[in-house]
């Protein structure tokens, strides 16, 4: 998760404004919840 947040920071610095990607094991919902709890709030603060 930290690596992904760091990647978002790097992309934002490059001018990337949107990030779209597949989520492994998406049907279990758990990965979506984890991303929502940890990554999205951190990226919102960039």
């Amino acid at each position, binding site marked *: 998760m930290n690596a992904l947040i760091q*990647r978002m920071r790097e992309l934002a610095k490059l001018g990337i404004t949107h990030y779209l990607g597949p989520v492994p094991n998406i049907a279990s919902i758990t990965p979506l919840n984890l991303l929502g709890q940890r990554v999205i709030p951190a990226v919102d603060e960039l």
Partner: protein
Amino acid sequence: MPRLTHTGLSDEMCGERQGAHTEDRKLMKIGVHVSSYTWPGGPQRLAQDLTRIAQAAEHNGFDKLSLMDHLWQITHNGPPEHEMLEAYTTLGYLAARTARIQLLALVTAAIYREPGLLAKAVTTLDVLSEGRAWLGIGAGSSEQEARGLGLTFPAAGQRFERLEEALQICLQMWSDNDGPYAGKHYRLARTLNSPQPLTRPHPPILIGGGGEKKTLRLVAQYAQFMPTATRSAATTTTSPRPSAARLTPDPAGSM
């Protein structure tokens, strides 16, 4: 031939959506891309699974939900016999099951639908989702599925010509001009489109593909966003500035 450009649109829309979602000024927006429908519950539970995924994505703050516009599963994700849903039917279904998340095909193969019908499909999605549709579009690249189901699949040069004409037709149908359109491949007698999209001046346009000679020009001329593959994500989208980023393509990546 009518020549429509994005004059007055693109600069305003770069990196930010006009219309229903302009209150969101985040630097980076994260979306989820659904590239497989082969899940443990099988086809009988596909509708429920898709609903749970879309609603969980929305609940967790994802900005977009995109689907592939393929007819068969693509090689990278599995064998062609794996489940695949038609994109715009599925997006319409998801529009009814969500309230905020933006919806798009990543990306529509321009050659799969007559452009007038494509413009109507995206317009319908935008109206019924209350302003949440994007047009993601590309030249098309999956010859096997196209030939398998009897769809036209011309050579690359013609596919790009058709892509450009499809963009021109969509933009004309999303404008006040309901006059005729006469291109090399498509001829429309009257480009009437009622109702117009709720997103004004039109749904954001993302053009898929990374070619410098053709795609970049089309992005600059007609679109607001282009995808850039990265090591850790299948797709990122950015504003149509060719200098914005050139990252190492790696479609195998995921979040």
